[in-house]
């Protein structure tokens, strides 16, 4: 009996800790696997947004950047950016009878962003508005197309070689008559000075207009401490300053008027937002197959109609879906690529319906994947897995599969960065076959 017990125990210990986990990979017959299927998104085109908001309305938030300048981009043509803003008395040194007026200036703080030829003299004119911008009656926004009249006689003009050391001191000397008018109002503590609302109604605001011959555009901070009209005065001993600056309370009047004229480029064909310029239709010498473009300020975006994945095998599911956009090599040496791309739901009329979001509520975005020493492999990848899974499960997927890839719409007025694509976009679908 003891001997048998011993034998049983020996055998019982026999099976343990087997590790053959990596043997025989070819044995599996690949019944379950992950595969990548690439679909060319043939129905890709460039569209031009008719209008887009360039203000923050009455949301209480503020624009971070404003852009000013004019540029002729070989891809998208001529673009002109004019910022508009209102100002309120911000205070400074008190003015009384012993002070003498010296000058009035307009000052902005360069934010480091610049696009275009910076070796040409640039000319700017500051004009006073003749009325306040009229907010959109439904949403209080101001758009890139909003026209606000201004006095054709500029308050002041300025020429500058747009190098950083000059831009950091951007300052326009304004008409002294305006300076004296404001000086007196401050000196006598006029009702317009005491009440910001009255001042906004009285002064309206200003716009900075670039000369059409300018060759670059640049950005400046939109915060109250970055834009100002300054009264310079002195007493017997000191030079003093009193400032008028933008106020967050009147931020709805700060916006960017933008104009793009694509004459001489394939995009001149786009005269309204409902029109498409297909990828292959944008082919021209030097652009072998075609072209797509999205860019801030000029309002271009990439419209795509996504291929809907076939139903396929029962035990097959999508584990990842992504859109791949390859920037045209060398297209971003002078004008940088956008840092982020957004994906918007669209329709056959090219409307920008809403930003597509992930299950956690954050927007679906595309980021640049850089390949060291292989610039031709650089690409924007937009992960659309959850959106695409939902789309493919929809009964009317074939009518909902319109999307727009664009620089973020709320930053459309804050950057001139551009993505130019010269290869047809690709939809990468990773399938798992698990049964």
């Amino acid at each position: 009996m003891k001997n048998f017990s011993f034998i049983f125990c020996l055998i019982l210990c026999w099976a343990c800790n087997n590790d053959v986990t990596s043997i025989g990979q070819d044995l599996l017959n690949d019944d379950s696997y992950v595969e990548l299927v690439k679909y060319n998104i043939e129905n890709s085109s460039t569209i031009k947004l008719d209008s887009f908001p360039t203000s923050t309305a009455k949301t209480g938030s503020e624009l971070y950047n404003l852009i000013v300048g004019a540029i002729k981009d070989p891809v998208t043509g001529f673009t002109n950016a004019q910022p508009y803003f209102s100002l309120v008395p911000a205070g400074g040194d008190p003015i009384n009878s012993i002070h003498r007026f010296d000058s009035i200036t307009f000052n902005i703080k360069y934010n480091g962003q610049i696009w275009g030829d910076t070796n040409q003299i640039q000319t700017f004119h500051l004009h006073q508005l003749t009325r306040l911008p009229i907010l959109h009656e439904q949403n209080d926004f101001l758009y890139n197309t909003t026209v606000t009249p201004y006095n054709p006689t500029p308050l002041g003009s300025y020429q500058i070689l747009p190098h950083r050391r000059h831009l950091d001191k951007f300052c326009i000397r304004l008409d002294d008559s305006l300076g004296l008018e404001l000086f007196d109002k401050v000196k006598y503590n006029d009702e317009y000075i005491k009440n910001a609302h009255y001042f906004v109604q009285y002064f309206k605001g200003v716009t900075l207009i670039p000369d059409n011959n300018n060759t670059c555009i640049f950005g400046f901070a939109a915060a109250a401490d970055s834009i100002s009209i300054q009264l310079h005065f002195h007493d017997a001993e000191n030079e003093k300053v009193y400032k008028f600056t933008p106020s967050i309370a009147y931020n709805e009047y700060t916006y960017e008027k933008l104009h793009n004229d694509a004459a001489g480029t394939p995009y001149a064909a786009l005269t309204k937002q409902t029109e498409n310029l297909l990828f292959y239709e944008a082919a021209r010498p030097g652009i072998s197959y075609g072209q797509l473009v999205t860019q801030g300020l000029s309002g271009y975006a990439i419209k795509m109609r996504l291929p809907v994945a076939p139903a396929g095998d029962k035990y097959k599911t999508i584990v990842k879906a992504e859109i791949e956009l390859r920037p045209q090599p060398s297209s971003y040496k002078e004008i940088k690529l956008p840092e982020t791309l957004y994906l918007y739901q669209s329709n056959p009329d090219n409307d920008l319906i809403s930003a597509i979001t992930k299950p956690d509520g954050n927007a679906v975005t595309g980021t640049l994947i850089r390949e060291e020493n292989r610039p031709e492999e650089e690409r924007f990848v937009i992960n659309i897995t959850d959106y695409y899974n939902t789309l493919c499960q929809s009964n009317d997927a074939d009518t909902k599969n319109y999307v727009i890839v664009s620089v973020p719409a709320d930053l459309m007025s804050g950057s001139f960065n551009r993505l130019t694509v010269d290869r047809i976009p690709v939809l990468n679908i990773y399938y798992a076959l698990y049964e």
Partner: protein
Amino acid sequence: MKKIIPLYLLCFLFSWQVFSQNNTGTPYSMYGIGLLQDNYGPYTSLGGVSAAMRDNNNINFLNPASYTALDSNRFYFQFGVTGEYVHISTHKENSSYRVAQNASLNMAFRIYKNLFTSLGFNQRSDIGYDLYYYKMINGSDNEYYNQQISGEGGLNDFYLGVAYRFGNLSLGVNTSLVFGNIEKRVNLIPLISDSYYINSRNKIAVFDAIFTAGIQYGMALSPKSKLTLGTAFNFSSKMNARKDLESYKVNTSTQSSETLDNERLHNGNISYPFRISGGFAYDYKDKWTVAGDYTFQEMSSYKEFGEDQEYNDYHKAAIGVSLLPARYGRYWWQRNKYNLGAYAVRSQIELNNVHINTYGVTFGTQMPVYISNRELLLGVAFDLGIRGTEKNGLIQEKYAKIRLNIAFKEGWFMKRKID
């Protein structure tokens, strides 16, 4: 009796443990109902011959007609188990594993005159694999995924058999209640950011009856020699089975999961194909035995829930020879039976255009131990063989098995003539 009951209990617990343990081993067990048993039973050391084998020491549960060879006044109890050490290799790597499997627990006794019965547990098939691979995503040139496939379980049966002897002809039938779970899991983990990984679990539960008939016919060729012919077979049978499939995908970023499938096929079945073994056993002078077997199973008709699994037919040929120097010899070694055998199997599996074959040689002994009013036969069988090939990226397994087979018989039904 007091000593033997704890031993029965120990055997029962042990065989249950072997049935239920996680025997991770051969990747070849991933196909169908698992790895079919090529060589087991009381005649393992004779190459696994069984069709014509009959004696009064072993319960040959592989052919129910053999029960009539048992002693009429004895109660038989038999326990067997196989331990296996396997060196597993491909053309580029190798490893090893050990498993205990093929446990069987059998009892037999005479019911009435020429009517005998046997009952017990056996393992019909065995699944145990756990494989983890790092593979390139099809269609990609620089992206990979992890593929983990694992499986466990197998089919067992509880059988009740009867046999009747008409002179030299014996007929028998085993009614087997086949039961067991086969669980196969697949995990696919793409090694790409912000994607989903897949967990899939496929469980098949089988519960049905199979009937195995057996025939044996013995004839004396001369006063010193005897020939037995035998066959055992079962017809193709559809076994009721229930298939559960659960699969879901999990977001690698948020860990949120989404159910893909939660299916139960109530009315499915697995076909257990027609199987037949036939053979002979030739005894000379109660000293020499030569036996041969051929087994065929029509695995090409094997289907799971209506889906043809595209297997080949199963073939096995086995031959064995044994020497018993002197059944009642003076010395212990003379009373032992010495066995030698060999077998070749062409399995149902064909991969990459290569048949997965098995070849083995066997040897061993059966040692009788006499205790008062009971006899014990301790069988030790060694089985050395090769399964598969390293060709075409496949696996070759070189195995060494040892099977212990312990058979008791007790005089439960003997009447004392003098009290």
